[in-house]
């Protein structure tokens, strides 16, 4: 059975001023996500991929259609769909440990257990020794590691990531991709990962969904048959390049469309 089912989801934003045209951000979109799948959603900026993810998270409402998680309709945000954002969203007043424990605390877990659990998660994302640091004292990569640990500590059914490495430099991003894959294989989680980076989308995913320019729709559904565990050297392999060429072609047409719409 599929873990997550998206059924004819659309999103229309109301006009920004009276008498204006409503904006269609997302055309009817349907797909299924299998258990323990790692899916990347690839699309040019402004194509509605973040909107789709926010609808799944329950932070935004679908105009039509519905989202089913384990057969139950999503009506609002919840800890079963943990989300990592592109902007750094650690709570600046909490230390790394307390950030990771936020969801556990909210669930009413006793202090001793949640401290033990969050120390454990801190170590698992490679942040041992930084437990008592405040977010401001961490680099961007370390903040996103904490954000990932904070979501995983909650043991969500599915993990949603909205361009989480978009603000990181290239080297850090590359390292973070490997870390994320490591964690995914160890914890066997279902992951939905939004990105506009073609290499990133292939390197991480078992399946890439390519979205069209706004109004967004799923334009291609590409299986990535490269074996896990994946090493960064994979990015220079012929199979990888072949996929990259294919996706580049798909995305390029959309990016050109998007650019044209903007200049009109």
């Amino acid at each position, binding site marked *: 059975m599929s873990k997550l089912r998206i059924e004819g989801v659309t999103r229309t934003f109301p006009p920004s001023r009276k008498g204006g045209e409503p904006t269609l951000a997302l055309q009817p979109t349907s797909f299924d996500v299998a258990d323990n799948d790692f899916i990347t959603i690839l699309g040019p900026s402004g194509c509605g991929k973040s909107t789709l993810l926010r609808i799944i998270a329950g932070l935004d409402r679908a105009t039509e259609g519905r989202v089913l998680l384990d057969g139950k309709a999503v009506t609002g945000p919840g800890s079963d769909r943990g989300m990592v954002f592109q902007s750094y969203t650690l709570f600046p007043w909490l230390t790394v440990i307390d950030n990771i424990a936020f969801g556990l605390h909210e669930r009413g877990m006793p202090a001793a257990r949640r401290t033990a659990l969050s120390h454990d998660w801190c170590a698992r994302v490679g942040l041992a020794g930084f437990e008592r640091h405040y977010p401001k004292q961490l680099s961007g990569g370390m903040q996103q590691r904490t954000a990932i640990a904070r979501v995983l500590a909650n043991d969500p059914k599915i993990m*949603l990531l909205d361009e989480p490495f978009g603000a990181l430099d290239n080297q850090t991003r590359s390292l973070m991709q490997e870390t994320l894959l490591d964690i995914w294989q160890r914890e066997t989680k279902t992951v939905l990962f939004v990105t506009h980076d073609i290499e990133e989308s292939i390197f991480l995913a078992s399946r890439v969904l390519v979205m069209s320019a706004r109004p967004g729709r799923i334009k291609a559904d590409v299986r990535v048959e490269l074996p896990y565990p994946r090493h960064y050297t994979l990015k220079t392999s012929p199979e990888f390049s072949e996929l990259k060429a294919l996706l580049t072609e798909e995305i390029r047409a959309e990016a050109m469309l998007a650019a044209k719409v903007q200049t009109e």
Partner: protein
Amino acid sequence: MPRPLEPVSSTTRVLLGVLFFVLFVLAWAWATLGGYVTRTFLADPLTMVREGYDLLVRHGFLFDIGITIWRVVGGFVLAALVAVPLGIMMGTYKSVEAFFEPFVSFARYLPASAFIPLLILWAGIGEKQKLLVIFIGSVFQIILMVAITVGSTRRDLVEAAYTLGAGDAGIIRRVLIPSAAPDIAEILRLVLGWAWTYVIVAELIGSSAGIGHMIVDSQALLNTGQIIFGIIVIGVIGLVSDFLFKAANRWLFPWRLA
């Protein structure tokens, strides 16, 4: 030559700050002791110090200082107890904000000192009236500023908390309040400064004790030395309370500086 926005060392900063006080007193001494200003209008620094000593030792001025501090702190704490929770509710719930905001914005512009005659009528000239002046002067300011601060909490933090399983109560208690807390402390520090203005005005009218009362008494005796001493005492207390507030904020909110 200093360049724009170039930082200065902490020693230089302190020295420059002290230098201004020194120059200020020197200019004052030059104007008064040099005979450029009549003593009736402005006492010289030495007379001021002598009068101040007199006030403290012989006229029980410490008691007046104590009374004034008690009034400011009392009225201010009462205002904060009402205003901070209300401000938080207004910042959190837009309907609560829509209900209170127009009135509070209106009331904010009513000068507290204009209420004094009315308050004397209602509450007499006792402590209750003094506290009410401070209360009216502070409460609306705090409400409005707290509401704005809470309302402008980063949306992405709120969303992150929701996806971590927080409910509405959790959002208020564990995101909106801690996120706004340092700014609320800063607002309280600012408004406490204004409360000092109101207390002196309240004490100038119908009062039998306090720094403001002493200043009115000294005016009747044309004792400008005492008046200036009173004003300086207010300034020093303000400086000390400001320092304490800042130190408390640093201690309470280390994550801001981290």
